[in-house]
C-alpha cells in the first residue's frame, strides 16, 4: 500500500511563489502539518470512503424486493415489483429490475446488502432524520458531522489539508462539518479553479501577515488553502483517462470526478456524492425506476473505472437514505415516509452478500419496517475496519461491527 502523500507538494508551493509570498508566514506550517496531520499517533491508512446520499427517503422494499412474501404483494397491489421481473439474488430476495447493472458486482462478491438499517425511535421528518444520519447521533442535536469528527480527532485546526474531504456539490455536506477546516465542495475542477482565481485571485493586499491567529490571518490562511486545493485538484485530475463511459447526468459525472481525483493521487479520504428525488409520495413506479437506473449505472461505471485505473483496492462505497418508506402503498400510487431500509456497501475490499434477514412484513412499527441493524454499527465498522479510526472518538461508543470488509 502506498504511503500517505500530501497533494500540496513543495513543488506546487514554489510554482505559485509570487502569489504565496504574500501569506508566506503561515504557509510552511500549513504544508508541514498537512502531511503531519495523518502521520502522527492517530495516523490513518490511504483508504478512501465514498458516501452516496440518496435524499428524500428511498423505498427500500422496491429496491431489494422480498418477492417471496405474500404480504408484500397484499400491501402494494399496484406498486409491487412482480416476481418474474426482479433481478433474483436468492430464493427470497431480488433487486429492482433497474438495478440489473449491480448484478455483476453481486456475483463478484463486491456488493453487500445490509438489511433493514435504522435506529431506535425513528424520526419521520426528512430534515431531522437526515440530520441524524449525518451527525451520527439520534438522541442529541450536534453541530459536527460524523465524518467531520473523524478529522477533528486527527487534524490540527487551521493546519489540516482541506482536500482530505471533498463534496461533489455547491456546499459542504453537514456530515463533513468539522472544526479543523477540512473539506472542499466542487462540481467541476476547472470551474472550481476559475472561482478561486476570481475570488482569491491576483489581488494585492495580502502583503502583511504576522503569522498570528487574528481573524484576519485566519481569513488569509483559508483563502490560501482554497487556492492550493483548487490548483492541486485541477493538476491531478487533468491527465486522467477514464476507461468507461459514465452516464451523462450529474450523478454519473460526480462519480467520474471522484474516480479522477482518486486516480490522480489526491489525499482525499472521504468523498461525498448525492442523488435526490426519492420522496416518492405519488406516481412512484416510473420515477423510482429512473432513479435506481441512474444509481446503478453510475455505481457500476464507477467500479469498473476504478478497477481499470488500478484503484479499486483502496475504495469502499456505501449508499444511504434518511429513511425507508411505508410497507403499504398510498392512494396516489406512491409510498409515505417509513423507517428502516436496506443499503448497499460496495467495492473490491467489501465482503459481498446479504447481511441480515429479509424484513418482516407482518411485525411492523406503525406500518413500517423495524430496524435490524443500527446505522452506527455500519459507521463503526467503516471507521475501524476501513479507515483505521477509533469509533469511540467519532460516535462516542464502539458499536457491534458487521462483517462488511474482507480481512486481508
Amino acid at each position, binding site marked *: 500500500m502506498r504511503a500517505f502523500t500530501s497533494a500540496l507538494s513543495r513543488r506546487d508551493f514554489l510554482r505559485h511563489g509570487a502569489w504565496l509570498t504574500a501569506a508566506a508566514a503561515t504557509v510552511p506550517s500549513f504544508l508541514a502539518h498537512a502531511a503531519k496531520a495523518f502521520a502522527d499517533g492517530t495516523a490513518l491508512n490511504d483508504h478512501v470512503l465514498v458516501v452516496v446520499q440518496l435524499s428524500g427517503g428511498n423505498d427500500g422494499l422496491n429496491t431489494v424486493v422480498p418477492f417471496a412474501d405474500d404480504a408484500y404483494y397484499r400491501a402494494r397491489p399496484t406498486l409491487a415489483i412482480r416476481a418474474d421481473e426482479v433481478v433474483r439474488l436468492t430464493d427470497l430476495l431480488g433487486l429492482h429490475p433497474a438495478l440489473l447493472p449491480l448484478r455483476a458486482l453481486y456475483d463478484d462478491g463486491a456488493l453487500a446488502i445490509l438489511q433493514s438499517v435504522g435506529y431506535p425511535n425513528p424520526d419521520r421528518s426528512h430534515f431531522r432524520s437526515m440530520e441524524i444520519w449525518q451527525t451520527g447521533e439520534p438522541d442529541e442535536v450536534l453541530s459536527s458531522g460524523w465524518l467531520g469528527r473523524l478529522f477533528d480527532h486527527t487534524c490540527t485546526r487551521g493546519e489540516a489539508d482541506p482536500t482530505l474531504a471533498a463534496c461533489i456539490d455547491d*456546499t459542504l455536506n453537514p456530515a463533513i462539518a468539522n472544526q479543523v477546516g477540512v*473539506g472542499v465542495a466542487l462540481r467541476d475542477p476547472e470551474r472550481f479553479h*476559475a472561482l478561486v482565481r476570481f*475570488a482569491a485571485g491576483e489581488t494585492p493586499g495580502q502583503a502583511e501577515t504576522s503569522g498570528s491567529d487574528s*481573524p*484576519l490571518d485566519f481569513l488569509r490562511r483559508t483563502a490560501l488553502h*482554497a487556492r492550493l486545493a483548487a490548483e492541486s485538484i485541477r493538476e491531478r485530475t487533468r491527465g486522467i483517462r477514464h476507461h468507461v463511459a459514465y452516464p451523462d447526468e450529474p450523478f454519473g459525472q460526480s462519480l467520474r470526478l471522484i474516480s479522477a481525483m482518486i486516480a490522480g493521487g489526491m489525499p482525499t479520504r472521504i468523498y461525498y456524492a448525492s442523488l435526490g428525488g426519492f420522496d416518492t409520495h*405519488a406516481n412512484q413506479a416510473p420515477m423510482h425506476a429512473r432513479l435506481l437506473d441512474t444509481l446503478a449505472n453510475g455505481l457500476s461505471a464507477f467500479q469498473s473505472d476504478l478497477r481499470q485505473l488500478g484503484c479499486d483496492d483502496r475504495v469502499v462505497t456505501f449508499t444511504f437514505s434518511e429513511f425507508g418508506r411505508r410497507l403499504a402503498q398510498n392512494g396516489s400510487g406512491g409510498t409515505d415516509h417509513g423507517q428502516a431500509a436496506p443499503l448497499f456497501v460496495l467495492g473490491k475490499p467489501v465482503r459481498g452478500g446479504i447481511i441480515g434477514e429479509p424484513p418482516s412484513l407482518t411485525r411492523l412499527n406503525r406500518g413500517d419496517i423495524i430496524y435490524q441493524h443500527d446505522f452506527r454499527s455500519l459507521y463503526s465498522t467503516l471507521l475501524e475496519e476501513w479507515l483505521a479510526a477509533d469509533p469511540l472518538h467519532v460516535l462516542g461508543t464502539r458499536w457491534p461491527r458487521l462483517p462488511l470488509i474482507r480481512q486481508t
Partner: protein
Amino acid sequence: MTSPQMDTSWQQARHLLARAGFGGRRQEIDRWTGLRQEERVTELLAGPSSIACTRPVWLDQSDRQAANRMASREERQEEQIQNREWTRDLIQTWLHSMVAAPDPAGMLRLKMTFFWHGHFATHMQKVKSAGRIWRQLDLFHREAIGNFGTLLQGIVQDPAMLIYLDNVRSHRNAPNENLSRELMELFSLGNGAYTEADIREGARALTGNSIEGNAFRFRPFMHDSGDKTILGQAGIDRAADFVDCILQQPACARFVTAKLWRFFAGETASSAPIEELASVFRHSSYDVKPLLQAIFSHADFHGDGIMGNQIKSPLQLVVGTLRTTQLDGLPEGAMMRLMGQMGQMPYQPPNVKGWPDGRAWIDTSRLLIRMAMAELIQARQLPRNMQRMMMARNVATLRLQPDGLVDTHASPSQQVEQACAVLLPIRPPRELLDDLTERLRTELQAESADAYRLLCGTLMLLPQYQLT
C-alpha cells in the same frame, strides 16, 4: 492633513453603525461623527421598540389551508409547494426591509428580529405553513428590542415553535420533552442550569399548548393539570408559570446577555463584562433597551480586541453590501440564495441551536462564495458557473450608487480613502491604495460607467471586508 476618517470619533461612529446595524453609509457615519457616543446610542434606542412586519396578502389563504382537515393528498401537495413559495416571499421581503432600513434605529430593530430568529430557531421544512412563519416573524418584530419575558411567553404559544419542537401532540399521558429541554437549554438558561427532572416536569407543564390550524390553541384535555415542581419551585401548572419560573433564575439574564454580547461584540478572547451587563438586564425586568444601551456604551465594546475583529455573518455581509452600495439589478431571490450558499438560509438553520458564528462561518468553499459576491459587483462578465450561483444572467446591468461610499467630486485618491474607510475596518496596505487610485483615475477619465463597481468590488475582495 489628517483625513476625518482617521478620527477616533469617526471610527467609533462607524463601529457602532456596523455592529448595531449593517454598516453605515458615508453620510450616516459623517453625521454621527458630530455626536457624542451617548447621543448616538440614544438615537438608536429612541422610539418604539417594535417595527412593522407587513401582513402578507396570502395570509388568510394560508390559514384556511392549515385549518382544512378534509384536503386531499393532491391538494396538500399543492399547498406545500405554495407555502414554500410564500415563505420565500416572506424571507425576501424581510431581507429587503433590512436593506431599505431608513435609519440606524431601523437597522438595529431589524437586526434584532434576525437575532431572535437565530435564538428561537425553527426550520421551514418542519413548520411548513408560511402563515405560521409570518406569525413568528411578527412576534420578533413586535418585541424586536422589547421585553425578553414577553418573547419567551410568546414562544411557548407560537404555532411554528410548537410544531418545530413537537409540542402540538404532547399529551399528559406521554409528554414530549423536546420543547421543555430547549426552552431551558437554548432559549433561556443554558446547559447545566437545570436537571433532567426539571425537563420532565416542564414537559408536563407544556402539555396542552397546541395549535388549531395556524393559531395557538390550549387543549385542556391534553394538559396535565397536576402540580409540578420545576427549578425548585412547587405549585406550577401551565406553560406560563413554567416561563415565569425560568425568568426568576439568575442564569437566565446571564445566558441571554452573553448571547447578545457575542452577537454585537463578536467572539472575543478576553473576558466579557457579562455579570455587569446581566445585572442591568435583571433590573430592567428583561427590557432589552437598557441592556443594549449598556452594551453599546461599554468601554470594552470599543476596545481594540473587538473593533474590526468580528467575522461578518452572511446576513451582515449580504445586507450590508447591498445597503451601502445601494446595488440595483440583482435578480429576485439573489440575497436569499447568496446567504444560503454562505450557510445562513433564513428559516433553514442547521439545527435547533441556530447558526454557529464567528470562524464557523468560514471554510474554503464558503469563503469562495463570499468573495465571489465581490466579483459579482466588480466584474462585467462572470464565468458561467458563477452566473448560475448568483442567478444573474447579465451582471453588466447591475448598478450601484457610489454616494454612500465616496464624494464623487473629490479627487481619485480621496475617493479611494473614503471608500476604504467606509467598507473596511482595517486599513489595507499603502501600495494597494495607490494602485487603486491609479485605476480609478483611469476609469473616471474614460468616463467608465463601471468605475465604482471596480473600486468597490476590489475592496470587497480583500479579506478585511469579511471583518467588521
